[in-house]
């Protein structure tokens, strides 16, 4: 992933060092902004020189080079300002490393609630994930200069903030989930990166929602190989080749989820992971345990006051489950109360298309899918919805009203 002549095996190890070294620098009193810049330079130098001259202690090497850069930067700044500098000639000794804590500490810095989500994501990928600015820019399809500016503005915003107090874990989890959901396209595998970071986070905190998030990512990621066909077309869950699902990832996700649920403090990510686990558990689509999925959705919407307004996405998921348990008409009725909140979104229309299809009402399904396609903001999604509309319409023409095949999600 990182450009340059590094051996493939080295990269993961190198990137794992980034949060440790950075946390060490910040803990001993270096400015976060300057320390992060210095470490980024040290990282680029490591990629250049390590293949030829591997260091004996990579962590110490990175810390030493970053420290030298910090001293250099202070010197040149001092020269610019024509004033003496107070930097010690020898860097102070780093405090004892606390590895799990380092990740958590840096995640709290990068996911500071005062930063905008896009900045939190970029800063996290660089300072905790150890990605280069160029890689992050490529992952989000923006020019490198734009991403560099976004990162340096974020760091400027952090200046003067106290970074020693425990931050907001809910924000950290949201940021990692944002990284995951952004990550199914592009040269950099952001989904894998988010899973790596979430795994590190679960080593640093007992919080069940952190494990719930890791489980959710694993249980979804396991289905990724089946989600697109070789032409890049979306394959819906009920038509995926379940033999392509990653059984090892599912097993790990289930294990992580169980350890979280055992703590008896369920939350949004644990519940969503439980739904994902039930889908993963069905050997065939018809074996999906919809009543249990509906029960989890009931728990999910109960987390929020007035969920139709404040968590319509959960309500929409519940409507699908309800449609499978109590019949498509019940599911469609449940979507009605969401019209005000998300009736202008593609997903609301797509769900209604699915429920109409389930009901055997193909003309209504085609109309809903066409509405959804007109509101999609993703080309693969849009093309998928157009296909579904066209297929439903062709199906309707083949079996005129009155002779509809009732029920069933197939065509």
């Amino acid at each position, binding site marked *: 992933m990182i450009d340059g002549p590094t051996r493939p095996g080295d990269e993961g190890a190198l990137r794992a060092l980034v949060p440790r070294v950075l946390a060490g620098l910040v803990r001993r009193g270096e400015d976060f902004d300057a320390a992060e810049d210095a470490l980024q330079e040290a990282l680029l130098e490591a990629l250049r020189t390590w293949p030829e001259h591997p260091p004996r202690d990579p962590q110490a090497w990175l810390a030493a080079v970053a420290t030298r850069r910090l001293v250099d930067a202070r010197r040149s700044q001092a020269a610019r300002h024509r004033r003496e500098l107070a930097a010690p000639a020898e860097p102070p000794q780093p405090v004892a490393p606390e590895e799990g804590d380092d990740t958590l500490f840096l995640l709290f810095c990068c996911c500071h609630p005062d930063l905008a989500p896009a900045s939190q994501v970029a800063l996290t990928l660089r300072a905790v994930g150890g990605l280069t600015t160029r890689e992050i820019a490529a992952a989000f399809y923006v020019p490198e200069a734009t991403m560099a500016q976004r990162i340096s503005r974020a760091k400027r915003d952090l200046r003067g903030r106290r970074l020693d107090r425990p931050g907001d874990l809910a924000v950290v989890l949201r940021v990692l989930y944002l990284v995951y959901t952004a990550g199914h396209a592009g040269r950099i595998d952001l989904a894998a990166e988010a899973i790596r970071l979430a795994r590190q986070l679960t080593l640093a905190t007992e919080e069940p929602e952190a494990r719930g998030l890791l489980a959710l990512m694993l249980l979804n990621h396991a289905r990724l190989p089946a989600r697109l066909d070789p032409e890049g077309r979306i394959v819906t869950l009920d038509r995926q080749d379940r033999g392509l699902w990653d059984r090892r990832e599912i097993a790990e996700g289930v294990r992580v989820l169980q350890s979280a649920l055992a703590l008896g403090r369920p939350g949004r990510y644990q519940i969503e992971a439980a739904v994902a686990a039930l889908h993963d558990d069905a050997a065939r689509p018809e074996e999906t345990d919809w009543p249990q999925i509906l029960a989890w959705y009931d728990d999910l919407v109960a987390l929020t006051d007035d969920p139709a307004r404040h968590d319509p996405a959960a309500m929409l998921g519940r409507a699908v489950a309800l449609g499978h348990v109590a019949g498509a008409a019940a599911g469609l009725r449940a979507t009605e109360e969401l019209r005000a909140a998300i009736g202008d979104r593609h997903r609301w229309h797509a769900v209604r298309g699915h429920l109409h299809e389930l009901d055997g009402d193909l003309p209504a399904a085609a109309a809903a899918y066409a509405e959804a396609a007109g509101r999609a903001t993703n080309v693969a999604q849009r093309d998928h919805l*157009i296909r579904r509309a066209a297929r439903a319409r062709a199906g309707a023409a083949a079996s005129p009203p009155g002779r509809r095949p009732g029920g069933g999600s197939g065509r």
Partner: protein
Amino acid sequence: MPKYLLLKHYRGGPEPHRPVPPIDRWAPEDVEAHMAFQHHVSELLEEHGEYVDAQALAPARTWVRYGGPDAAPVTTDGPHPETSDLIAGYWMIDVESRERAVELAAYVSSEPGPGGTPLYEWIDVREVMWERARTTDA
């Protein structure tokens, strides 16, 4: 080498040479053929070293203007949203000549429509202006 935009429109432009229903009303196999062609165009441009960028634009449109000091921006979806010109997306290409841009636009326009026969869609060809001054005097 000049750069051109090959613009596709949801609506607007000259009278359609071949009026067709919206794509979601085509036969499924015609939809597949049409979409496959779009991917094929991007691949072809890349193979020829002529591809710069391609983007699709969602159809929802909002017109926005400055609302004046201490006022919120003013927005509208247009006086005649159903008749005004609406861009659907574009390819940006970097080619030898205007002739080549026209040739490629015609090829894009030959995309399969209902029944698998060409759509004859009008493609809007626009040259992209250079940002910087040339290094030699003209």
